[in-house]
C-alpha cells in the first residue's frame, strides 16, 4: 500500500479572501479576446479549409477515359480493419469492346459508411489507384440503407482522376501492334 501523505492546506491571505485579483485577471482575458480577430466558423454557412491529405469519404474514381479503374482485386476488402468494404467480383462482358482486355471489374462494390473508420488503408493498398479518400467530411442519411454506398454512388462521389498512366490503353496498343488486340477473342475462336 502506498503511503498517503496528508498535505497541510495554507490559509487564504487577505487579498485572496476578497476574490478580486482572480476576477480582474479573468476579466482581462475576456476583454483581450474581445478585440482579437474572430476564429469561430459560422458552420454550415462557412466551411473549414480541408488539408490536401485529409481522409474523408472513400470513393471510387474513373480514369481520364471515364472508364472504371477498379479491377476488383479485393485487396481493400482484405485490408479494411472494420470490414466495411464488400466487393462482388465479376468478368467484363465481351460486349464492352473498349475494355474487354481489362478482363475483370467489380460487379458490385459496397462500402458501409457506418462502419468505415476513415483509416485510408484502402487507398494505400489499391494497386490500380482506383479508391481515394476525398475531402467530404459531412455525411448523413435517414436510414442505414442510405449509408450503404453502392458502386454507382461511389463513382458519383469519386469522379474522374486525371492521372496520365493510360496503363490499359498501352497494353491494348501493344497487343494490337502484333495483331492480337481487342479482337483477340474472335481470333482465338478461329483457332
Amino acid at each position: 500500500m502506498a503511503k498517503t501523505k496528508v498535505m497541510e492546506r495554507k490559509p487564504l491571505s487577505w487579498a485572496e479572501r476578497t476574490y478580486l485579483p482572480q476576477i480582474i485577471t479573468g476579466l482581462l482575458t475576456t476583454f483581450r479576446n474581445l478585440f482579437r480577430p474572430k476564429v469561430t466558423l459560422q458552420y454550415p454557412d462557412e466551411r473549414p479549409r480541408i488539408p490536401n491529405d485529409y481522409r474523408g469519404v472513400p470513393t471510387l474514381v474513373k480514369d481520364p477515359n471515364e472508364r472504371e479503374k477498379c479491377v476488383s482485386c479485393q485487396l481493400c476488402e482484405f485490408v479494411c480493419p472494420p470490414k466495411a468494404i464488400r466487393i462482388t467480383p465479376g468478368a467484363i462482358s465481351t460486349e464492352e469492346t473498349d475494355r474487354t482486355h481489362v478482363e475483370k471489374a467489380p460487379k458490385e462494390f459496397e462500402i458501409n459508411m457506418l462502419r468505415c473508420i476513415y483509416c485510408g488503408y484502402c487507398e494505400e493498398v489499391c494497386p490500380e489507384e482506383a479508391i481515394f479518400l476525398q475531402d467530404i467530411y459531412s455525411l448523413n442519411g435517414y436510414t442505414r440503407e442510405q449509408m450503404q454506398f453502392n458502386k454507382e454512388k461511389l463513382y458519383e462521389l469519386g469522379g474522374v482522376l486525371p492521372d496520365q498512366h493510360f496503363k490499359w490503353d498501352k497494353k491494348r496498343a501493344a497487343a494490337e501492334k502484333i495483331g492480337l488486340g481487342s479482337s483477340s477473342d474472335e481470333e482465338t475462336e478461329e483457332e
Partner: protein
Amino acid sequence: MSEENNTVTINLDGDDVQVTAGANLIEAVAPHGKEIPHYCYHPKLSVVGNCRMCLVEMGMPMKDRATGEPILDENGEVKIGWMPKPVIGCGTNVAPGMHVRTDSELVHDCRNGVMEFLLVNHPLDCPICDQAGECGLQEFALDYGRGYSRFVEEKNVKPKQVELGPRVVLDDERCILCSRCIRFCQEVADDDVLGFVDRGSHSTLTCYPGKSLENNYSLNTVDICPVGALTSKDFRFRMRAWFLKETPTICSESSVGCNATVSSREGVVHRITPRRNDAVNDTWMTDSGRSLYKEIDHKDRIRSFRVGSKEVSVSEALEAATNLLGSSKVALVGSGSCSVEEQFSLKKISDYLDAPTYLAGHFGEEDGLLLSADRTPNLRGALATGLISKYPSDNLKSLGRRLAKGEINTLLCVREDLLDVGLTPTQLKGVRIVYLGTLENQTSRMAKVVLPALTTFERSGSFINLQFRLQKFLQAIPGPAGTLPDVFLLNQLLAELRKEPATPFSMDEIWTEMGKRRGSILKGFTFGEIPLDGVLLDPGKFRAFPYVERKNLHFNLSDFRKGSNTSSQQAT
C-alpha cells in the same frame, strides 16, 4: 552410410541427415524443413527439369581413381568434390555420402537469376489474376527475387483469354512454360492435346488444332499450373484465394472417394480442389466431381420440412413421419449416398420397425482413373453397417413386387428417386412415402412427408470407398436455415418411434455403438480418430462380394479379392 530401412545418409547444408533412398533432392530434403523451390517438378509427373528453379550445389566425397582410397584434406577429412556448376534438384537422386547445399550464396544467386528471367515477360497482372495468393511466382519472387525490375524493353505480348476447353481458360502471357499441364495430359489423363509452339520467348502453350482440352480431368491442369496461366472458368473471378476457408471433404461422385478440399467463404462454396492422398487419388480429381457443390444452391433444393404440400416445423414433420411409419407394412429404401453414421441410424430404425431395407445401386461406366462404376460414395458403408446384406442390383424389382402385392404400403425413402430405380407410378399408387433428400424429384413430389437433407458440404460424416478405406468429410458451410443434419433427424425419428425422449448424441457415440455390434468391421475408433487421409478397414467377409468396379488408379478388383486393398499400379 546406412542403407537400413531404405534410407541413405546425405550431408544437407553441413548436417548429416537420413533421407529416402532413390528420392530426388526436392523430395528428400522436404522432411528436413528445407524447401527447394521448383515450378516444373510435380511429384506425380515425370521430371523434365526445364524451369531451373531448383538449382542446388552438389558434391561427392573424392576418391583416388587408382586405389579407390578416399582423398583427405590437410585436416584428415574426406575432400568433397563439388560440382563446378549447380545441379537441378528435381533431376538429381540422392546417393550415399552426397553433399548438398540448398542455402549457399551461389544457390541464392541462381534462384534470383531464374526469377528475374521468369519475370521478364510476366505481365504482373496480379490484381486480376485468379492465382494471386497461391501463386508460385509471387511466393518465390518474394523469397528470392530482387524486388524491382531491371527490364526496360517492351514485354512480350501473347494471346490472353484463350479458351482451351469448356472449363479451362489460358492466359499465355502468364505462362512460364513449365509443361506440367502438357505432361499431365500425356501421362495421367491420356488425352495428349496440349503442346508448345514457336521458339524462345515466343513459345506459346496451345491446344492441338481442331482439338480442345475437354477430358473429365482438364481442371487438374489448373490446379498444377504454378502460375495463373490456366484458370478454371467456374472459379474465374469468383473470389480471391486468401478469403477462402478450406475444409477437408470427400468427393461423393463415385465409390473412389477422392480426397478433396472445399473452399468456402461466409457459407458460400466457391470451388472444390483435390487433396493429395497417394493411396486414393494422388493429387487428381474429376471435373464432374468438382461441380457437385452446385447442388447446394440448386433451384430444386428442398429447404423446408413439408407434410403434403404444407410447410411445417421440424417437430410437426417428425410427428407426421412417426405416425406414418408406426403402421405395420413399412419398408426402408436406403442409399449409398448416405454416410456410414446415417446408414447405421437407418439400420437401427429398420431393426426397430422390423422393416425390410432395400437399396439400389447406381452403376455406370468406369474410366479407369478416378470415376468408378459405382456412382455412389458409400455402398460399402451400407454393407459394413449391415443396412443391406447382399450386394444390390441397380433396380428395386423385389420391392416393386411386394408393393404390387400390397405387402408394403409405407416407405421411408432416403436420397433415392424411386421412379428412377425401377419402380413404376402404378406400384407406388397409394403408397405413403416419407422422403429425406436434398433435391426435389418425382418421389419427393408424391411424398406425404418431406424432410430436407444436407449435402456433403453441409454435414460431417464418413464414407467407405471401394478399397474399404474409411474416410471422413467435415462440414464446410451451414445448411439452409432451419435444417438439421440427416443423422440427427434419423435418430430423432427413431426416438419418437420408440416413444422415448430424444437423447443428445455425438458422432463419437455413434461410432462407439457401431463398434459394439457383433461382427462389425467398424471397430476400434471414434469419429474424431479417423485420420484425414482415411484408414483402411479389413473387409473380412465382404472381400468376395460381386463388386462392379474393376480397375482404377489405385484399385484392382482381382488384387482386392486376393487380399490387397490398394493397388499402386497406375491404370492407363
